[in-house]
């Protein structure tokens, strides 16, 4: 059952559950961050409205820089601004930043350990009709592999707002993964958020499988858990919002309690969140695992729902993975 201690959205499983794009939370969080800290600046590569940085640009025009379609410059200019004491947030589609400008992020931001915050919007396959070129499903892999980088994949708009605010304080580079489509709001204003802390959203007595999900697919994981519970199969569902640094303690504890793990992410299976979990468990608590994600394929046009189903990341696929382990 839902972990009530976390003060999650009580209407979570209602048909009319509130739906808000995760990127909206980033836009609102950045305005708050800008109000609280004069050093926060925003830079965008010609996708200001799409990435919701327009909210910041309207409120703080003097602290916003329109970069044009130039993502490599975007990353390195931000590094230079950070060297002068600014806390720059840069935004574009994840496919272009951090997709196109990976080396600039590695060398000019992470190698220098400059506190640049990279907001990659339109991540995942649920970008939908734009097609495979615009669906970033490799971004977690390429960000988590760089030293000094913190990687956060919020599950909903409220968590994205909190993650944006929290990232101001880390003193490190941070990658925040955002999605385009409206997705269910699972948390509430009162749900705590701490970078590096995983949370158990769904608890099950003597759960046989632990499901670890990140991003909006957490909702599918919760639906799967509920359905399985109704069939008498108990699971636990973890929201792993911070992929790096990994909350190893919580992941190992979940594996200890359940003995089996399914990971769920809107990302390539290779190199993603599931791989991060496997790297941890293989060393500290090897248990049977299944990985729900994109299996070494590119995306295509379609509705988000069609694509999630087609590429095997829907509720049915999660239930199937759990059943394979039970």
């Amino acid at each position, binding site marked *: 059952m839902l972990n009530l201690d976390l003060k999650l959205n009580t209407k979570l499983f209602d048909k009319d559950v509130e739906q808000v794009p995760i990127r909206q939370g980033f836009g609102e969080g950045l305005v708050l961050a800008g109000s609280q800290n004069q050093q926060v*600046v925003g830079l965008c590569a010609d996708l200001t409205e799409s990435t919701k940085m327009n909210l910041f640009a309207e409120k703080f025009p*003097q*602290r916003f*820089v329109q*970069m*044009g379609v*130039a993502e*490599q*410059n975007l*990353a*390195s*200019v*931000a*590094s*230079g*601004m*950070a*060297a*002068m*004491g*600014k806390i*720059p947030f840069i935004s574009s589609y994840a496919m272009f930043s951090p997709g196109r400008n990976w*080396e*600039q992020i590695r*060398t*000019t931001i992470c*190698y*220098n*350990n400059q506190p640049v915050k990279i907001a990659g919007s339109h991540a995942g396959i649920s970008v939908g009709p734009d097609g495979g070129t615009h669906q970033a499903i490799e971004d977690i892999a390429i960000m988590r592999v760089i030293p000094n980088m913190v990687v956060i994949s919020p599950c909903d708009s409220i968590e994205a707002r909190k993650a944006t605010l929290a990232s101001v304080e880390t003193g490190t580079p941070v990658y925040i993964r955002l999605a385009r489509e409206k997705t269910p709001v699972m948390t509430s204003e009162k749900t705590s958020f701490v970078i590096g802390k995983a949370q158990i959203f769904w608890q099950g007595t003597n759960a046989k499988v632990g499901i670890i999900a990140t991003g909006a697919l957490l909702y599918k994981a919760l639906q799967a858990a509920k359905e399985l519970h109704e069939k008498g199969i108990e699971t636990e569902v973890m929201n792993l919002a911070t992929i790096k640094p990994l909350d190893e303690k919580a992941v190992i504890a979940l594996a200890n309690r359940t003995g089996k793990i399914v990971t769920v992410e809107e990302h390539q299976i290779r190199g993603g969140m599931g791989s991060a979990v496997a790297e941890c468990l293989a060393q500290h608590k090897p248990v049977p695992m299944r990985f729900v994600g994109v299996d070494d394929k590119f995306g295509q046009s379609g509705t988000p729902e069609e694509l999630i189903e087609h590429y095997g990341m829907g509720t049915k696929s999660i239930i199937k993975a759990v059943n394979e382990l039970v």
Partner: protein
Amino acid sequence: MELIDERIIELQSKANDIRVSIIESLIEAGSGHTAGPLGMADIFTVLYFHTLKHNPKKPEWPERDRVVLSNGHICPVLYATMAHAEYFPLEELKTLRKFGSKLQGHPHREFLPALETSSGPLASGLSQAVGMALADKMDHGLTASRRIYALLSDGELESGQIWEAAMLAGKEKLHNLCAVVDRNNIQIDGYTEEIMPLESLSDKWRAWNWHVIEIDGHNIEEIADAFASAKSVFGKPTVIIAHTIPGRGVKEFERDFRWHGNPPGKGPTDMIPAEEQGRVALKELRTLGGKIKSEHE
């Protein structure tokens, strides 16, 4: 500020000392780049011993000017100049490229915190300098007085990121930004105009709304004047296109692209045998130092 002859001679002599240090450190390292560092020694000398507002004893002094070396591979000249400016002891130059050294093969700020940035992969330095200039202008507007210097190679101008940065600097009218292009016409595979023609270079910068100054990159007075006049340019960033001779100071090394990426001892052997290269280079530089003095005496 105009330079009196005595000061010019001092700076010429300092540049020569820096060239000697470059060769000495490269010999110790057994790898690294020779041509670019020798070619840029005069510009680094003027920058660090005449133009720059800095304090080697307090490298974190907030009001300092900033130097961003974009083409990190010419770091032997950066390190030698910083050592002569007393950022760290001259003896440390012998640790270039060695395990645990402050002087990494390409500059790394974590090992040498007095650096403004790490560099190596080409073409991202101008962007970082633009970011620094932009941040300062955001806070201080047209009165922003800290100067941001970006040192670039000509070869790296083949990369698109340079022009992304140039476009933004022109758009933002960054008067506090001064780029220097080391126009030495060589890169690792050959001569720039054969690899990928860059001319007409000054027109390209003007097209992005930059103020362009072309100088002889070995003439101390011209270098100092260019840095000084860049400060008075209003509403535009300045680029100094410095025509330099790669390998400057060792005549067997000069203008030969094969000296781009090799240290003495591993360079082309048709002029000097490998085992003689270090000794010959040091001898020539030390003799040249004597000549410069005698010419002006």
